[in-house]
């Protein structure tokens, strides 16, 4: 693939949790239409990177820009309005509300009733399982269904950029495959994806480019194909 216009840009981003220096000068670019993966071990700073982008945590220095606009200090609820949706780690669905209500809350920032209805159909077509369970309480869904709901809910914001945090967590291998092919479909329909995964093999399979994080620093970056065959990556993350 050729040069793409940068949708999201992180320049020298640092994050501290109290005395802990979690992100140590991250530089990262996501181009329009790409799937970019962040891989790395527990505590490397993958989730922290996503949370810094979505504004849930504050950066201590550095610059995050989206479509050329500085969003470093923008509060989380305004970042969603700009077209960045996050599917949080552990899904975090609204467990006591119905599937329908969860999806409706996804469209909370929107006022275009017609568009919301269309997107609702689009989400339910993509996840037929959710259509079957539309008036069921979300907390009673299986893990895989909850993950689908979390993705569907994020789609309801009609995002340009979707941040996915560990979508494979706690899912059976077959379901992981399904979820990942759905992520690819969403990307092919025009949504840019930034994906955080421990399952490096799957992540590199669907990504165009990837970054490898180690203790708050980016240690490797490049095309997913290149990284998948890189000796260090193989050894550390692909079990080869």
């Amino acid at each position, binding site marked *: 693939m050729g040069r793409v216009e940068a949708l999201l840009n992180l320049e020298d981003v640092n994050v501290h949790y109290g005395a802990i220096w979690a992100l140590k000068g991250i530089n990262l670019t996501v181009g329009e239409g790409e799937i970019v993966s962040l891989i790395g071990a527990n505590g490397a700073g993958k989730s922290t990177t996503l949370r810094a982008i979505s504004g849930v945590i504050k950066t201590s220095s550095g610059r995050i820009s989206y479509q050329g606009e500085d969003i470093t200090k923008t509060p989380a609820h305004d970042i969603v309005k700009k077209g960045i949706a996050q599917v*949080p780690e552990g899904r975090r669905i609204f467990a006591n509300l119905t599937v329908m*209500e969860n999806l*409706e809350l*996804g469209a*909370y920032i929107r006022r275009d009733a017609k568009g919301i209805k269309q997107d609702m159909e689009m989400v339910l077509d993509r996840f037929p399982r959710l259509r079957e369970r539309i*008036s069921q309480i979300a907390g009673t869904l299986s893990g895989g269904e909850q993950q689908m709901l979390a993705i569907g809910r994020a789609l309801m914001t009609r995002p340009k950029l979707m941040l996915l945090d560990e979508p494979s967590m706690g899912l059976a291998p077959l379901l992981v495959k399904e979820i990942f092919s759905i992520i690819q479909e969403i990307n092919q329909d025009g949504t840019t994806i930034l994906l955080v995964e421990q399952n490096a093999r799957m992540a590199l399979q669907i990504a165009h480019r990837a970054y490898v994080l180690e203790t708050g620093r980016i240690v490797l970056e490049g095309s997913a194909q290149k990284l998948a065959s890189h000796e260090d990556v193989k050894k550390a993350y692909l079990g080869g």
Partner: protein
Amino acid sequence: MKKYLSTLIICLVLAVFFVVVQLGINNGFITGYWVTNLYLVGINVILASSLNLINGFTGEFSLGHAGFMAVGAYSGAIITANLGLPFPLAVIVGMLAAGLTGVLVGLPTLRLRGDYLAIATLGFGEIVRVVLMNIDYVGGASGLRDIPFVVNWPIIFFSVVLSLLLIRNFICSSHGRACLSVRENDLAAEMMGINITYYKVLAFVIGAALAGLAGVLYAHYYTVLQPRDFSFMLTFDVLVMVMVGGLGSLTGSVVGAVLITVASAFLQSIPELRMVIYALLLIISAVFRPQGLLGEKEVSLKILQKLGGVFNGAVGSKQTH
């Protein structure tokens, strides 16, 4: 069509109830003691449903309701008793004062969660009480007297109906949904673009303002206010009503308020046992029905529809929502 019909039925039932009670009071069928308790039920319904908005629907645990009620009661009473201005102004000022206090208390304390918020709001309630006890302008510990007796059945009735309508419409609006999502999972709510601080404070302020309204009504019925009327025990009473009725159920709050007020009227002759019985009630409901009598469900006319469906032997049109 169906929606209009059920609204019409509800209006009719309310109108009949209103007229029957008014006639009962006029003709002496409802005696003084029960009139007092009837008004108290009304005031308690407002208190319970407004506390439910904060504790049940938004998922914050506030124990400051007695404080907000006191702010409303005293500022309303100042308008009528000390300044000689009309009662409607007292209602407005009482609600505004309580709502404003809600903003001031809510902004810093709603960053706290669970137990900490409970302790902070509990402290607020006690501060209000102690401050009132030390202001001579409102009578200090001996209380504020000679508040005009204004409250009658229509005022209570319409205050209750309007309060419930306000809370119901709020809950059913997208703002209410936002509050529910904050209760369910505040991080996810934030990621859906919901300004969680705003909604926590908003629900808190509406709840506080309605508690203020209850305070104004209270002041203009009893005509005497004493700081000790607004002790923690009052908040506890309201909390029991909300818990017994069901956190997150508006009709539950109504049921809880009616039940507890009537029960406490019957227990008036054995005041020393009242709190014991309250505590027992709370324990029993926590053990056997932790979600409250109604849980999060609402009583509505859909029940009649369902019953009608059964009687007609037909399956009513199933509503997915």
